[in-house]
């Protein structure tokens, strides 16, 4: 069973909460360095340690990055208020987290996936990260630990939490959403977006419902997924767990669950039923943020081309649809593609080679050489096999396609030579030719295969087919 398939009659419902660490120089409310991997508790000060009497001062670069991300997600950037989220935890120095609640910096937005599906964005708010706990002894959780160590270097690192609407209904869309968000983060430079290092952390809210229903059933929040692939596995496991429960006249409980990568299952964490009441209220130590229209306009003005726009631009130039060129954009090869198109190459050929033959990079290949190669292939001067070989050479050592093809002995085969071969083949196989002329498509492969064998693959398949068709219509 493919992982995006649920049993007949069930629909998957996924909403994603993605925490993104902003790539600022300093933390959100103090001037400590925002650095990953330094010695524990070295990048700290009274403010990020929450010492009595310390006060926060908001990092303007963090706010700017958050607004850039918001605009990249099509969000409304609005006046916002920081709020305190109150709960006790040892790695949270103040025992409250400064976040945003009813007035986030970024309101409603949307993210379009490469296949054109649109995922709603509810909000993208700014908050501070917590420290990092290591629980020693027991099962690795705080409850059974002998003791716990806390590193506050991460405390106060700026985060944006991007909250999607629960309108993803396939695992592929959930994975594409995370991948697309990561590409946007990298394109805008607001985060290094490394899931494995935790600078991009995904929590998946998963539920299922009968196909055709619009209800939202009890969801479980899946944490601890460290890659897009793990997330896909976790969602699949969780959805099936829910369906099994419903099929047994039971139902899931609303809770946080942790993905256990090694065993391929989710296990229960804290139940949300007895979760803390966070007692949100406006953070009195900070002023509201009120970006001006000019600030927002300047952000839009400076916005780099985003994946969605790049897909559209390339698709239009290549005469294709955006989904066809998604991989090219994801690999950041759209610039090369556009240059090759501008140099006169056909879109389908350019995209085909980029996806199939240039996955590891274009090396020494210039856009002009690339365009020349695609044109030679299109004209029939090179077969697709020859073109692939020439392309590999151009990538490795550069040069011009005509020279490389000549050097490899890939002279364009004279059509008259081919005609002689085809006519000979027809004369030698009258029964097969008869079937071909009656329209038996299967026998076409026999003729093409024989010609290729005779020419050691140097013949252009397209030209061979044209010859066969013209002989059949005149016989």
């Amino acid at each position, binding site marked *: 069973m493919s992982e995006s398939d649920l049993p007949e009659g069930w629909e998957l419902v996924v909403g994603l909460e993605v925490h993104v660490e902003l790539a600022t120089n300093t933390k959100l409310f103090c001037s400590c360095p925002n650095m990953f991997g330094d010695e524990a508790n070295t990048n700290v000060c009274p403010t990020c340690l*929450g010492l*009595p*009497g310390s006060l926060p001062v908001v990092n303007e670069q963090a706010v700017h990055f958050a607004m850039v991300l918001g605009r990249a997600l099509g969000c409304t950037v609005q006046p916002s208020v920081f709020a305190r989220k109150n709960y006790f935890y040892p790695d949270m120095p103040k*025992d409250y987290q400064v976040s945003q609640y009813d007035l986030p910096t970024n309101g409603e937005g949307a993210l379009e996936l490469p296949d054109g599906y649109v995922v709603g964005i509810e909000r993208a708010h700014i908050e501070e990260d917590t420290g990092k706990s290591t629980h020693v002894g027991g099962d690795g959780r705080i409850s059974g630990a002998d003791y716990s160590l806390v590193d506050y270097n991460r405390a106060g690192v700026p985060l944006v939490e991007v909250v999607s609407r629960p309108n993803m209904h396939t695992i592929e869309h959930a994975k594409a959403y995370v991948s697309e968000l990561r590409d946007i983060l990298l394109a805008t430079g607001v985060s290094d977006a490394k899931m494995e290092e935790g600078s991009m952390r995904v929590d998946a809210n998963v539920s299922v419902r009968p196909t055709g229903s619009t209800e939202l059933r009890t969801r479980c929040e899946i944490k601890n997924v460290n890659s897009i692939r793990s997330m896909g596995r976790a969602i699949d496991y969780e959805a099936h767990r829910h369906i099994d429960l419903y099929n047994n006249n039971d139902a899931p409980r609303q809770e946080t669950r942790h993905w256990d990568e090694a065993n391929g299952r989710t296990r229960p964490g804290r139940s949300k039923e007895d979760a803390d009441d966070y*007692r949100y209220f406006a953070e009195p*130590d900070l002023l509201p943020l009120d970006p001006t229209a000019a600030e927002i306009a300047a952000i839009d003005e400076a916005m780099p081309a985003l994946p969605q726009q790049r897909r559209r631009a390339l698709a239009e130039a290549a005469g294709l649809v955006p989904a066809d060129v998604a991989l090219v954009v994801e690999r950041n090869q759209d610039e090369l593609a556009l240059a090759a198109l501008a140099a006169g190459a056909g879109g389908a050929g350019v995209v085909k080679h980029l996806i199939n033959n240039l996955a590891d990079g274009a090396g020494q290949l210039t856009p002009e050489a690339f365009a020349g190669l695609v044109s030679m292939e299109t004209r029939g001067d090179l077969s697709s096999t020859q073109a692939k070989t020439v392309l590999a050479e151009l990538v490795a050592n550069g040069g011009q396609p005509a020279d490389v093809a000549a050097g490899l002995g890939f002279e364009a085969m004279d059509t008259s030579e081919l005609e002689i071969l085809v006519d000979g083949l027809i004369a030698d196989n009258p029964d097969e030719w008869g079937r071909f002329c009656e329209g038996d498509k299967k026998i076409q492969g026999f003729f093409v295969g024989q010609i290729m064998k005779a020419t050691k693959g140097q013949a252009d398949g397209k030209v061979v087919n044209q010859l066969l068709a013209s002989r059949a219509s005149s016989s």
Partner: protein
Amino acid sequence: MSHAVDNPSTAIEIAQAVASGATNASTVMDEHLARIEASETEVHAFNLVLADQARQHADALDARIAAGEDVGPLAGVPIALKDNMCTRGIATTCSSRILEGWEPPYNATVADRLANAGAILVGKTNLDEFAMGSSTENSAFGPTKNPHDLSRVPGGSSGGSAAAVAAGYVAASLGSDTGGSIRQPAALCGVVGVKPTYGAVSRYGLIAFASSLDQIGPFTHTVADAALVHEVIGGHDPLDSTSIPQPAPALTEVLDRGVDGLRVGLIDEMMGHGIDGISADVLARTNEAAEALAAAGAKVDRVSIPASIYGLSSYYLVAPAEASSNLSRYDGVRYGLREDGANVVEMNTATRTAGFGDEVKRRIMLGTYALSAGYYDAYYGKAQRLRTLLAQEFNEAYQRFDVLLSPTSPCTAFAFGDKTADPMAMYLNDVCTIPSNLSGDPAMSVPFGIGDDGMPVGVQVLAPATHEPVMFQVAAEVERLAAEAKGAAQ
């Protein structure tokens, strides 16, 4: 018996004498330390006296002056800080067991600014635990006594800072005022106390009680001294996001301008028409102050601030709500007290149970409840709306008046134990001072005569936000008129 100092040297006198070489900082410091030596064991104004350090700093300052250096406008002035203001390497306790022994690794902005102005820190003063109280009886380290009468409270929560000035231990001190914690003890101890505009003085390094209400201000013997100290500690601080982005206003130059033509509004609700429990002698002194101002050329009229009646109710939701969050960090994990427990939750609980006193626990519970899901709108939300209404009413009043006038405290200093059994009776001490914290406007208490019990009475001068100059101008006149009235009575 009284340990209140007679004819004290003012901060201005000390600074001028030290800077000019008429005396030196060491001599001044010895005089003040001698008074501490004589009666501090009875008064208990301090949690910590830094006698050796203060002498060393005085010597160092004298050396700098001898070298021709200008050491600042508070040259050699002995000062004290309420023990909820951080001092690097010096224990800062908030008069709580939970912070006992904790030494901050940094200075509050006000501590740095005073030191840079030549003032010398003598000690950290006692307070109601985490500034929650009106008598200093909630200190975990025992109460401070009123220097005018050791059987009476000094007020609170900044009782130690008020008593330290009244007893002549220091020439000036700083307190923090969340609902009256500077002005009420100033009134009860017979000194000047100022609650500046919210944001006028940096809160960086002030251990928070209720962040949207807390404000640091001075205690001094005179209005002029308070003006000078405010000039030193006020002005923008980039470390406090709520700090007003302006320099401190010039205050010392406005003090002799009189009140001719100024419009003074006497707040009806606080003069026996709306708020109950203001004692007759306090009302009488306030009326006398108003009459004296009128005689001095001010236009005095009555003004109504109806929402002020609900100030107390609003305050006891907003302040505990913020406190419940601000005090969460005292969990035994990083600093201060830690009581063992079988797991982290039990450790947190044991630490907070042992470390906090009853009043602090009462307010944490009240505030936690007020912020709870389902109650937020009815309590915290409504209390915040009352603040907006109150600020509007004050603004309307200030269309017609330059300053407002009222009693500071409903009564003079009361005896120990009088109000400890009934939290509501204690809370009522702040009924006239709380509205200014809720609105964010400045207000100050100036001594004006004595009550029937012979204890000091203070009157409160209120002004619009950032209008400290006119507030000090009127306060200076009240101070002159009080001296005249005292002279006439003798």
